[in-house]
């Protein structure tokens, strides 16, 4: 497996009223070809900002430092014109909120076709693209034919809009697809259908994905690896089974314990404000295992098992057997 995307020490801050609000702090993660990396965490932890940073879609007041390598090329150094050649073609996205992400005054077919069509395309190209759109619609379980192509978003259900957005993301056969909370706006019955669509995409189209979600069950179903974000940092990253079944970071443990299937044990406290962050570990004020070192020192990333890293001071000076026994006892 070859590395496709590598994010190294990504920092994003926003200039707000002469202050800099630091949102992402040294975020590092990587995605291999044909691999799905799920990013989970509660609302406001910086998942979508990470996605937007990769797509160069952050607002004008954002300050980005660090590196994002896509196929070995640092895309943070590219200007908008250079990046536009990649965006929509090699790196594509499926946005959250299907109801607001489609242009209400444009036929859904045209919105999908637009991703492929050049500005001054010939009639023949347009026809060819329309066929391609019909094909992708039927592949995603949407009705084929002119009628559906010429529907407006207001005539479609939430699930259908979600599929149209997926069609927009995959019609160019991108190598990397950034999917932002795809199950957020669909009801429970449609949720599995949407997740199945992504599994099929991964298997059929060999497309790597950054799967941003706060639905842990969805992440488990679709992803090969999982990254857990808290307050702008990646606190744990590793293979899906390992992270979900043997979580090491107290935050991940709390997240999993709060799932309805695991007893619905809600964590204490709230995520701190980005304008008033604790000095040491950002989770220290909510953590049950917190000690002096957590309050004073920023934790470092420790490799717990093969490819499974966690950013917690508990594991700082432990050797492998100690970590293992800690995992069993806790």
């Amino acid at each position, binding site marked *: 497996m070859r590395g496709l995307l590598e994010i190294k020490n990504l920092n994003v801050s926003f200039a707000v009223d002469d202050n800099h609000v630091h949102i992402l702090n040294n975020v590092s993660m990587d995605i291999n070809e044909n691999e799905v990396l799920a990013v989970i965490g509660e609302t406001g932890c910086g998942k979508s900002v990470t996605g937007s940073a990769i797509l160069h879609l952050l607002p004008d007041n954002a300050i980005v430092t660090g590196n994002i390598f896509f196929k070995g090329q640092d895309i943070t150094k590219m200007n908008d014109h250079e990046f536009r050649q990649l*965006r929509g073609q090699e790196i594509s996205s499926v946005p959250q909120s299907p109801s*607001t992400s489609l242009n209400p005054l444009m036929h859904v077919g045209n919105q999908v076709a637009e991703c492929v069509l050049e500005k001054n395309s010939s009639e023949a190209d347009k026809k060819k693209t329309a066929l391609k759109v019909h094909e992708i619609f039927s592949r995603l379980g949407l009705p084929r034919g002119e009628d559906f192509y010429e529907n407006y978003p207001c005539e479609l259900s939430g699930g259908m809009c979600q599929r149209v957005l997926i069609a927009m993301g995959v019609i160019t056969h991108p190598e990397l697809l950034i999917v932002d909370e795809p199950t957020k706006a669909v009801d429970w019955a449609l949720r599995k259908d949407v997740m199945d669509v992504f599994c099929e995409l991964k298997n059929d189209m060999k497309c790597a994905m950054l799967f941003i979600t706060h639905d842990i069950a969805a992440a488990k179903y679709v992803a090969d690896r999982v990254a857990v974000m808290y307050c702008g940092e990646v606190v744990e990253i590793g293979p899906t089974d390992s992270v979900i079944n043997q979580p090491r970071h107290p935050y991940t443990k709390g997240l999993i314990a709060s799932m309805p299937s695991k007893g619905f044990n809600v964590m204490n406290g709230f995520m701190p404000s980005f304008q008033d962050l604790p000095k040491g570990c950002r989770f220290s004020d909510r953590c049950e295992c917190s000690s002096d070192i957590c309050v004073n020192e920023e934790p470092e990333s420790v490799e717990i098992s093969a490819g499974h890293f966690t950013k917690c001071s508990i594991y700082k000076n432990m050797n492998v057997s100690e970590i293992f026994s800690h995992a069993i006892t806790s």
Partner: protein
Amino acid sequence: MIKYIIKRMIIVFFVLWMVATLTFFTVHVTPGDTANAIIVSVYGEDAVSPETLENVRTKFDLKRPVFVQYTDWLKNVVTGELGTSYKYNKPVIDILKIRLPNTLILGFSAFLISIVISIPFGIISALNHNRPIDHFSRFSTLLLSSFPSFWIALLLIIIFSIQLKVLPVSGMAGFSSIILPAVTLSIGMTAATTRMLRSSMLDVLGQDYITVARAKGLEDNQVIFGHALRNAIPPIITVIGLQIGHIIGGAVIIENIFAWPGIGGLLIDSINTKDLPMIEGCVLIIAFGYAIVNLIVDITYSCIDPRIKYSGGDN
């Protein structure tokens, strides 16, 4: 769609009837004797005498009770007969035929000027949100919309007609004479449309589908003209519709200042002479203009925005 238009036309006739009725009775309750006003306006003060008053009252059937006058007049209107002007002694319809095109020419010129200026300015202003050009556009539109139009008219006359002597002061003689009234009339409309388009564009540019359009890798021009502008247009159509209505009827002051021989000037003149058939003719034309423009706005709306058709816009 045809059913919808027919339904709307029926409403338009109701509106016209109500406007005409209200105008009829309003003119009758205003102080002053109609016969006296007619004689003064046509022959001067000296001609007023009991005999002439009697003659005029007989000639125009002014002795009938008001309600009878109203029903007689209404019967005529329904058959397409707007009556004869007291002052001009000609059929109202003939005078309107001469005056209406002048108002339409003036209104259309003002409309064109305002569209040509406001649409690019509104877009540029929104795209440069909070930059100097946006501040300039906001300040200048606020300033221009705050000045009363008669003051701007006088200012323009002083500068271009009296000081620079490049444009005529008033009247309607050739292309140069339309410039000042059209510019004056367009200023308020330009300011309103620019501000409306700016805020509408800003609102649309913040929508998710614009970010999605950018994420597709579209060029800026495609995003702005293909996605943003079309969504920003519906509120502008409402504003433009109201402004056109205002131009048809509300050019009264401008037409008077520039002695432009349109409907507005005619209306003021007719009110002064209590020339009831003429007043009614003008009011009906203005109300009809308003109603038709509103109908066109609603139809345009449903053509642009599919959501209106489907959310019961037909009702």
